[in-house]
């Protein structure tokens, strides 16, 4: 087996993965959700025909759950934020196509589907708010009668003297940059199997989720059931990318149904449902203004971030806009900054987390605007960036707003590394020559910073995240000397289980295969404050494992020293044994020391029998991963089609514990970034109805759509993490839109117009009008 490979990867090839839809239980019932087909309407529900179907056990509508199911908790809760008060099923009014209105439980899925089609919903349409502009209009219809407008929350931050900086600066550029609504569309949709647990009078929920502990908390909160009676189990997760990071109404409903019916109930989201019910991402407008000196120094930045939250401030809520406010200054020294955010509701599916979560949106705006600035000033875009990058000696460097701390990195070195590897100068020259021959060829680049290792608990509290930012790991060495690691992190393809295995094995000088990792079970695994999101698995989950393993090592050494008759300070753990330093003859194996710990016949005075350790890790700061994307494109002038000829991606995510898995994350992110840049978009008609509702209409990249991609990297360990690792899960998706858009702008020149400022950049918009 190759060194990078996850110990469990082979079973996926054999078809032995176990996803929620693969699980079944005796007596299992099947749930189907009835959803709104209108974007905004008052409703009345008649479920009598559905209830009368043979084999139907239960039909619930919004009125049936009013007393029993509370609105879900808000995970990112900023000051002044407005609440929707919505519950898992709509009551009296629907606010988006896809909103759950009723749930049908039956003995088979076919019966449940049939009955679901018989639930009659009478709609009295209301005026629809289909866009940010409509939501903010003075006479806009309101989604929530008790709100004064359609704004969930807004805020602003300033640093330095932005107005003065703009007044004095010789060069101004500004633009409006739109990141369209896209969806993660993990190949596995969401799914839940909830079972009544008679032994605990509780409920066990199997769910495809990134945050088992967060789901448990939400169920406890919404149903008023004590947390120790709720067990969340996460089987294999078939991709997530943020879309499964927050609890969903269906998960709460299923837990409720299992408790009510005292039976197992399964719900598997169809792809058609996923298009309207699984939280999409992006859908954000960033207005940005830059003030620059004549030699290209950024003197000031003003930004307004407007997030279309869809119909309700669902769990992750306003966070993407707030994260954007934090990241909008990027990798650059900018002394005078003003950033404002506002989050509005519209009659569309609520947006949530998606790979990048607020950072790709502001990166697209900033890096597009910098390109315009370079053109205006007349210097090379790479050179403009170089002049503004924060130097290593200035780090850790807080941004002017104080929202971001650039912790460590060699930004300029990275830029040079990538430019050289891409043969940037020569390519720019060749592109110019090709343009002179009439071909629309262009080169573009974008630098990026990525917030990872979320994140200090105190910071979480300060910015309104209703959880901590730490992880706990426990490690148990068995009497025979092998180790089981228990983690709150959830594998979903990224390979975190492999990384934790490596970290533990390295700390204990054991072979990797002597370590197993247990995950995805709230009864067995320790608490994680934020689940697997925010690119924190290796840096935070891994640091907790490292600390726990080092505690276990200390105990092993103490036992070993005792067995060897040596002083604890004189022994060390190496290659699977405890030995007296520089004396290979005086050595006991880990297995023998472990056996001694469990026999407890003769342990050092005062030592507890057994061999396990626990550690929590709460970082001092976020870790800021960074890098640069370069793209060469050719635009077909006749068709508007963009051919991405080459991509080069440079990145630094600190110490790479498993380089192959790092590379896999980066490439996967790049290709999702290509999808969001050129193909993917969830469109709506004027009545707020989604028009993109099946895979045929949502062009995900396939193999033939992927250009050649080259990677280069630096490894600058983060000084704030014991293992030096930063996260990397979102890197690829962040700078690709700006890099490709800049290359298209370079290729088409002024004729590109505004088309390169709106994602996705479809061929329609690149055709001469």
């Amino acid at each position, binding site marked *: 087996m190759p060194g990078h490979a996850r110990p469990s990867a082979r079973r996926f090839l054999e078809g032995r993965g176990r996803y929620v839809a693969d699980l079944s239980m005796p007596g299992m019932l099947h749930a189907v959700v009835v959803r709104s087909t209108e974007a905004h309407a008052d409703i009345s529900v008649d479920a009598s025909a559905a209830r009368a179907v043979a084999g139907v056990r239960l039909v619930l509508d919004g009125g049936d759950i009013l007393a029993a199911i509370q609105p879900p908790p808000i995970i990112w809760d900023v000051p002044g934020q407005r609440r929707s008060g919505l519950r898992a099923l709509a009551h009296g009014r629907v606010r988006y196509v896809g909103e759950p209105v009723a749930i049908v439980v039956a003995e088979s899925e076919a019966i449940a589907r049939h009955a679901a089609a018989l639930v009659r919903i009478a709609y009295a349409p209301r005026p629809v708010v289909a866009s940010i502009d409509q939501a903010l209009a003075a006479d806009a219809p309101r989604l929530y009668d008790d709100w004064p407008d359609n704004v969930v929350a807004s805020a602003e931050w300033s640093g330095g003297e932005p107005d003065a900086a703009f007044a004095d600066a010789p060069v101004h550029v500004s633009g409006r940059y739109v990141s369209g609504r896209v969806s993660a569309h*993990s190949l596995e949709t969401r799914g839940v199997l909830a079972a009544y647990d008679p032994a605990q009078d509780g409920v066990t929920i199997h769910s495809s989720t990134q945050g088992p502990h967060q789901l448990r908390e939400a169920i406890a909160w919404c149903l008023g059931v004590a947390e120790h009676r709720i067990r969340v189990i996460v089987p294999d997760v078939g991709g997530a990318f943020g879309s499964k990071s927050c609890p969903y109404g269906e998960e709460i409903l299923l837990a409720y149904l299992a408790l009510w019916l005292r039976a197992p109930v399964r719900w598997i989201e169809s792809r058609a449902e996923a298009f309207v019910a699984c939280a999409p991402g992006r859908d954000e407008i960033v207005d940005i203004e830059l003030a620059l000196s004549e030699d290209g120094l950024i003197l000031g930045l003003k930004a307004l971030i407007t997030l279309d939250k869809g119909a309700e401030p669902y769990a992750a809520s306003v966070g993407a806009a707030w994260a954007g406010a934090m990241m909008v200054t990027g990798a650059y020294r900018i002394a005078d900054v003003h950033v404002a955010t506002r989050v509005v509701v519209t009659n569309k599916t609520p947006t949530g987390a998606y790979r990048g979560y607020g950072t790709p949106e502001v990166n697209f705006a900033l890096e597009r605007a910098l390109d315009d600035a370079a053109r205006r000033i007349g210097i090379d875009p790479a050179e403009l960036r170089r002049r503004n990058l924060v130097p290593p000696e200035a780090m850790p460097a807080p941004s002017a707003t104080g929202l971001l701390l650039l912790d460590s990195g060699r930004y300029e070195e990275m830029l040079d590394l990538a430019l050289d590897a891409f043969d940037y100068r020569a390519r720019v020259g060749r592109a110019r020559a090709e343009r002179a021959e009439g071909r629309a060829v262009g080169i573009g680049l974008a630098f990026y910073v990525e917030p990872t290792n979320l994140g200090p608990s105190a910071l979480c509290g300060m910015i309104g995240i209703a959880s901590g930012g730490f992880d706990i790991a426990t490690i148990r060495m068995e009497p025979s000397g092998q180790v089981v690691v228990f983690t709150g992190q959830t594998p979903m393809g990224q390979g975190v289980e492999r990384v934790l295995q490596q970290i533990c094995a390295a700390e204990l000088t054991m072979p990797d295969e002597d370590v197993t990792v247990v995950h995805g079970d709230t009864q067995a695994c320790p608490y994680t404050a934020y689940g697997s999101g925010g690119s924190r698995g290796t840096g935070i989950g891994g640091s907790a494992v490292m600390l726990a393993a080092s505690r276990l090592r200390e105990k092993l050494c103490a036992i070993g020293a005792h067995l060897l008759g040596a002083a604890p300070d004189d022994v060390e753990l190496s290659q699977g044994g405890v030995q007296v330093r520089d004396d290979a003859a005086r050595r006991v194996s880990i297995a023998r020391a472990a056996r001694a710990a469990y026999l407890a016949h003769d342990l050092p005075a005062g030592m507890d029998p057994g061999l396990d350790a626990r550690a929590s890790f709460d970082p001092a700061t976020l870790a800021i991963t960074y890098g640069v994307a370069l793209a060469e494109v050719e635009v077909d002038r006749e068709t508007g089609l963009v051919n991405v000829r080459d991509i080069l991606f440079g990145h630094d995510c600190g110490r790479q514990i498993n380089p192959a898995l790092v590379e896999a994350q980066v*490439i996967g992110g790049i290709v999702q970034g290509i999808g969001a840049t050129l193909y993917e978009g969830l469109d709506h008609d004027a009545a707020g109805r989604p028009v993109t509702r099946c895979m045929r209409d949502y062009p995900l990249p396939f193999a033939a759509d992927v250009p050649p991609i080259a990677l280069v990297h630096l490894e600058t360990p983060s000084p704030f993490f014991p293992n030096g690792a930063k996260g990397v899960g979102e890197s690829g998706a962040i700078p690709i839109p700006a890099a490709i858009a800049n290359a298209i702008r370079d290729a088409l020149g002024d004729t590109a117009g505004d088309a390169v400022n709106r994602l996705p950049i479809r061929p329609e918009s690149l055709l001469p009008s």
Partner: protein
Amino acid sequence: MLINCTLNGRDTAIEAAATTRLSALLRETLGLTGTHVACDEGVCGSCTVLLDGSAARACLTLAGQCDGVAIETVEGVAAGETFETIADAFLRHNALQCGFCTPGFVTTVAAMLRDDARERLGDAEVEARISSVACRCTGYLPIVAAVRDLLGRDR
């Protein structure tokens, strides 16, 4: 109706409604959950199986259409001779992450290897076949590398 077929090399008789989708029949009646359903419209390819040796979408196949047909699922491919080389190549290239689409690639590649052994497949055909299955995790490059490796093609 009674469906007489060969399932993963064994003669099998299955009682099922003729209009049951093969994907549901495999997963729910036969417990062969390696065939995954991701889009139910034939686009994504996670449910790809081999019918009489050719790749086909189980979600676009009815039970009734399988009477008299040899069905091979990922479980069948995994028990076959070429599987070791397929698995080795995919693991060597780290050509899977969450694993959900992986069975679709394994069956597609198994058919490709057999067809290629009969008559060498052109590059366009290889690209088209790899591009018949969607993966959201890997960005495809490692999958393409694994397949080209298996086929003995340059990259």
